[in-house]
Every structure is written in C-alpha cells, then in structure tokens.
C-alpha cells in the first residue's frame, strides 16, 4: 500500500498495534502485564534450584577433572577432542539466533521480533557465557589459559596469530562484549520503568544506577535509538563472522571431514537453526507460564517457525554438499571417511543428526503445525538434540578415522564428560532464570512504540487503539 495513505501517527513498515497486539488496550496494561511477570513464584524457585544443582554437579566434576587430569574424561586417542568441543560449538551456535533476531531482524524492521527479541538476546549472552567456558575447560592445563591472551609479558612471547584457536578467543570475547552491551542498552528504558514502579528503596537504588539516570526525555530517546541502531548494525556482521571463525577450528585443519570450504556458511546456518530451536524451547514455556499470549502471538511464532524451516533446509543442503564434495574429490581419505560416517561405527549418530535436523523440521511446511505450540516445543527439543549430534558427528568420527589406519580408534565418554555437559545446561538456565525474574523478559518500551505514541503536541487525549485492519487469523490470538 502507498505510505501516503497511512492514518496519522502510524509509521511505515511496522503494522499497527491492532494487527500486532489486538488484545492490548493501554500502555499501563503493557507495564503491569510485563512487570507483573517479575514476582518470583514457587515453580520458578524449583526450576532455579534444579538449575543450580546441575551447575554445582558440573563445577564439582570440573574440579575433579582438573585435579586428576584430562584422563578422567573419556578421551581416547586419536579422538583428542570430545564432548567439550562439541558442546562449545553447540552453545556458540545457540547464541546466534538471539543476535539474528534482535539485531538483523531489527534492521529489517521485522515486526515479529519485538516480543521475543529480549528473551533471545538474553539467551545469546548466557549461551556465549556458557560456550566461553569450554575452550578453557578442555585444556590440559586450564590454569595456563592466559597464554592464549596477547598481553605484554616478561617471556617476550605472544600467541600464535595463525592459530584458529586464537581467533576463537577474539571472536568469543568480541561476541560476548557486543551482545551484552546490546542487551543492556536495550534494557535501559525498561529498567527506568521498573525503577519508577519500584517501592523497595534498595532495589530502587540499584535500578536507578542501572538505568543510568534515564529520564525519558526526547533527547535521551534520540540518543538511545541512535545507539541502538548503531549497535544493531555492529552486531549484525558478528552473526556471520563469529561462527565462521568457530568453523575455522575445523576447516583449517586437514583432518578428513573437517577440511572443507563449505564450513563457514554451513556453520552459520546451523547456528541460526539451532538458535531458533532454543528460542522455541525457551519462549513457548515462558509464553505459557507468564501468560504472554497477547504479546508472543501465534503470528510471531509462525514467522519464527518459517525461519526455522528455511535454515533447516539450508543445513540439509550443506550435509548433502559435503557428501557430494567427498564423492567428487577423488580423495580416498575423504571418501573413506564419509562412507564411514553414514555406514561406519558412528552411523547411529549421523542418522540422529539427519532425522532431527532435516526430516522432522519438514513438518513445518504445514501451517497447522507451525501454529501448534506443543508440536513446536517437541520439535525444538529434537532440533537441540540433532544440532548437538551434528557437532558430535563432525568432531568425533573424523578424528577416530583419520589418515593413519594403525591409529584408528573409538571414543567412550565417561561420567566426567556427562557431568560437565549437564553442568553447562545448569549454568545456562541458572542465569536465564535469574534474568527473567529480575528484568523484563520483553521490551516494554518497544511494544509501546508499536502502539500509537502520545506525541507531546498531540491534542487528542485518547487515541483509538482499535483502529486498523484485523487479520482474520488473529482471532486465535486471544485464547
């Protein structure tokens, strides 16, 4: 439609509130609904307790591993990398969807991001925090991890700029910095809202500090939107670069099954795919628990599901391409490995990966299933599993079946590996659970943006919020 024909107060690209959130009547409702989610509940305490327990199990296991040596884990040469690196890549991947949703979709003005971006951005930060542990955790001498950080020292030596692992250090740290800044900046207006609503003086003081003295002035808003846009633009390339760098850990090596030019795009697609999966895993229960159906509407979920379907097909294509390259390379090492991948001792892992990541998501072609939150939740669990196994299939079978037949081997993780894996989930969910009860899980300010704003000069005291076209499908949104 022609932009000139827009009713007064409506901005281009962003559908009107009536379309987006028909059930939302006023700003106050937004505040109360979302701020209302913050009160801790019994279920929340239970969940947090479980998370912390898992985290502690992981911490204890790690302590034991450091004391005993990496031999306590299931490493079995030639498989020198195992569950830890697999889980590292898994968590980094999770992170990406958050940034995609909060930054890229913001730049593209994709409306459906509004309601889920805060949760996903938080997810990103915590996922990267989790991922960041693993490179240290899998070191033989973790207490020497600082050798990887370039700082002037009396040894007069520096890290090796040629090594992908050093690139990792930079990539992960950059990503953590940017995404946490991005999250925080976005939070400022909402923190200010909480500050104003807060009764408890101590909390009020803390929130006041965090809100950096936000006074909701036009000037602040102007700076805020600038900064936010800038950060979004800044974060966008990271979505592509960070996971490309992670993929270099493998692509730069000459191990059959790793040494492939397709890895960067393949990993980025996989990352986003797994991230969306995790978004569903988090957002759908959240939507139920916090009664946010008005905000996270089926339209939003439907849109996200389409993105999921798309990335799934990209990943599937990547899998096939790997086989095609191996087949056409005429390189027996490569061919032997890929044959072994699907029919060898690791076939079961490969098939879990293919079914979870390529077959099951095909169900999303059906709109019914796209709008069926139960199915999406189940599917998202499968996707998480499948994506973990994708990394497993990349790391372990490649190493166990390399150039030198005499050194072919296998791999059996021990309780230590699983303990630390469990711990990583505990760690992640601990932070996330703490977050959702301390800070708004949804960007109040941005939702209000969608509602028609009260302009200072506006003489119309009560704008009619119901104005606008009602989408036929929207009827389902209110139950």
């Amino acid at each position, binding site marked *: 439609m022609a932009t000139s024909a827009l009713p007064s107060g409506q901005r281009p690209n962003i559908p009107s509130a009536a379309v987006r959130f028909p059930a939302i009547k006023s700003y106050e409702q937004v505040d109360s609904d979302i701020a209302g989610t913050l009160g801790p509940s019994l279920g929340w305490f239970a969940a947090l307790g479980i998370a912390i327990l898992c985290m502690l199990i992981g911490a204890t296991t790690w302590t034991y591993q450091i004391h005993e040596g990496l031999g306590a884990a299931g490493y079995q040469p030639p498989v020198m990398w195992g569950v830890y690196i697999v889980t590292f890549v898994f968590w980094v991947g999770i992170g990406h969807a958050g940034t995609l949703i909060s930054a890229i979709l913001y730049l593209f003005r994709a409306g459906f991001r509004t309601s889920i971006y805060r949760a996903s951005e938080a997810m990103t930060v915590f996922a990267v925090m989790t991922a960041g542990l693993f490179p240290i955790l899998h070191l033989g001498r973790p207490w020497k991890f600082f050798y990887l950080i370039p700082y*002037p020292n*009396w040894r007069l030596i520096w890290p090796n700029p040629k090594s992908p692992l050093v690139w990792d250090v930079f990539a992960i740290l950059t990503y953590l910095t940017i995404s946490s800044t991005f999250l925080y900046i976005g939070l400022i207006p909402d923190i200010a809202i909480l500050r104003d609503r807060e009764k408890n003086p101590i909390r009020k003081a803390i929130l006041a500090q965090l809100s950096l003295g936000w006074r909701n002035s036009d000037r602040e808003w102007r700076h805020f939107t600038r900064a936010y846009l800038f950060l979004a633009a800044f974060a966008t390339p990271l979505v592509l670069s960070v996971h490309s760098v992670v993929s270099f850990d493998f692509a730069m090596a000459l191990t059959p099954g790793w040494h492939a030019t397709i890895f960067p795009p393949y990993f980025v697609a996989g990352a986003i795919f797994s991230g969306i999966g995790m978004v569903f895993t988090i957002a759908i229960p959240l939507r139920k628990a916090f009664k946010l159906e008005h905000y996270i509407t089926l339209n939003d979920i439907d849109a996200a599901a389409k993105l999921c379907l798309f990335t799934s097909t990209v990943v599937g294509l990547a899998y096939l391409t790997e086989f095609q390259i191996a087949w056409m390379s005429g390189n027996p090492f490569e061919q032997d490995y890929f044959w072994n991948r699907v029919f060898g001792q690791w076939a079961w892992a490969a098939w879990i990966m293919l079914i979870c990541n390529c077959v099951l998501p095909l169900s999303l072609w059906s709109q019914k299933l796209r709008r069926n939150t139960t199915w999406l939740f189940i599917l998202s669990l499968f996707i998480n599993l499948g994506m973990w196994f994708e990394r497993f299939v990349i790391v372990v079978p490649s190493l166990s079946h390399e150039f030198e037949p005499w050194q072919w081997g296998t791999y059996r993780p021990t309780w230590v590996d699983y303990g630390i894996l469990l711990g990583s989930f505990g760690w992640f969910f601990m932070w996330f659970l703490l977050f959702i009860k301390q800070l708004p899980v949804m960007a109040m300010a941005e939702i209000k943006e969608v509602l028609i704003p009260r302009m200072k000069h506006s003489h119309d005291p009560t704008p009619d919020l119901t104005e606008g076209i009602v989408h036929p499908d929207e009827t389902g949104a209110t139950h």
Partner: protein
Amino acid sequence: MTERRKWTAIPGLLALAIGAVMLSAYSGASSSQHRSPVQPIAFPHPVHVQKLGMNCLYCHNAANKSMDPGLPAVGTCIGCHNMVGPERPASDLGPKRHSDEIAKLYKYADVAGPGAGMGPNAKPIPWERIHKVPEYVHFPHTRHVNAGVTCQTCHGQIQKMDRVYQFASLNMGWCVSCHVNGYSPKEGEEAAGYSAAQQASPNSGVAPANLAIGERKKARYDCANCHY
C-alpha cells in the same frame, strides 16, 4: 561533578585497572631476584677471590666443561683449610683472629684440628640454593663460559658479595634479550671488574673465544635451544 562525568569515570577506572595488571605481568613480579638466603656457613667470596685471588674454576670446577658448574666438595675446602684453621695467629695476612665459620666447616668435615684429615662422620654442607632455573630450562654453563661470558654477567659482582644474592632476574626475557642483542666480552670483563686492557681475565675462567673486543656475540634464541 555532573551526571555525565560520573558515568564517563567508570570506563576510565576500568582502563587504569587493566593497565596495572599488564604492568605487573610485564615487570616479572614472579622473579626471585635479590633473594639472599642465610647460608649454613657464611662463605666469604671476597676473601677467597679478591684477597687470595682464587679462580672461580678452582671450586666450581665443571663450569667450563659441563652444564653443571659443580659445587666444591667438603674435601676441597679441607684441602686448604686443614692448614687454615679457625684460629689464625698474627701473620702477614693480618692480625690474630678467630673464625666461627671455619670452626663450623671443621664440624661438618669432622676435622679434629689443623693438619688433621676428614673424619668418618663428615657431613655435606647443606648450602642454600640461590640461582635456580626451572627444570624445563637447560642452561649449559660450558657454552657460556667458553663463549667468554664472565661469571659476573649473570651472577653479579659475586667476588664482592659477603653474602651471595640473586643478581639477575633469570626471567626468560632476560635470557632472550641477551641472546638476541648479543653479548660483548668487553662488557663482561668490565662487569667482572677488569679493565678492557687485561685480556685473559682470571675470573672469567677462560680467555674469550678468539673474539675481537667489542664485537657482539649473538646466540640462538629459538625455544628448543633451552627447552627440551
């Protein structure tokens, strides 16, 4: 202070903190430089080296042919000290004096008195070790001594130390900078307290390996030179 300044202060402080950490790392705070433990016997290097003009290699007899400089055996001490006892009559060496340290030595060596040999209950002297590089560093004394590196270059004016202390930091950077920038025997001899004129310096053990004075002698500095 205005609202805005208050917030700009935070990153400033952060930067300062980081800077401090880096500096401490760079200064090699971990080094045990200047450590000077009390020895079981206060062995006076000045007397032996400066007054009596003994060569370092007399006691540290392997320094020019082994990784290990070699420590003098108790017997080596007694070799002279069974003549030089705790009690010294007035002589051209100086006035009459009593030395507790030599008495200690006699106790360790189980020597009855001047002229007597070592007894059956002799014990080694548990010297406190001062200069120690980590086990994964292989420092060949022979290479350095034969290249004309004087003892003083690394151990300091040891002939003047009544109580030996760790002169150099022995940090890797300290080693490497010398290997890279090179070493001039001339400097070494000056460090040893000898004028450049004196060629064969008694203290540096051997004559500098056929080198013109002032020419800087560089050394390999790849890791496997010392770490293996």
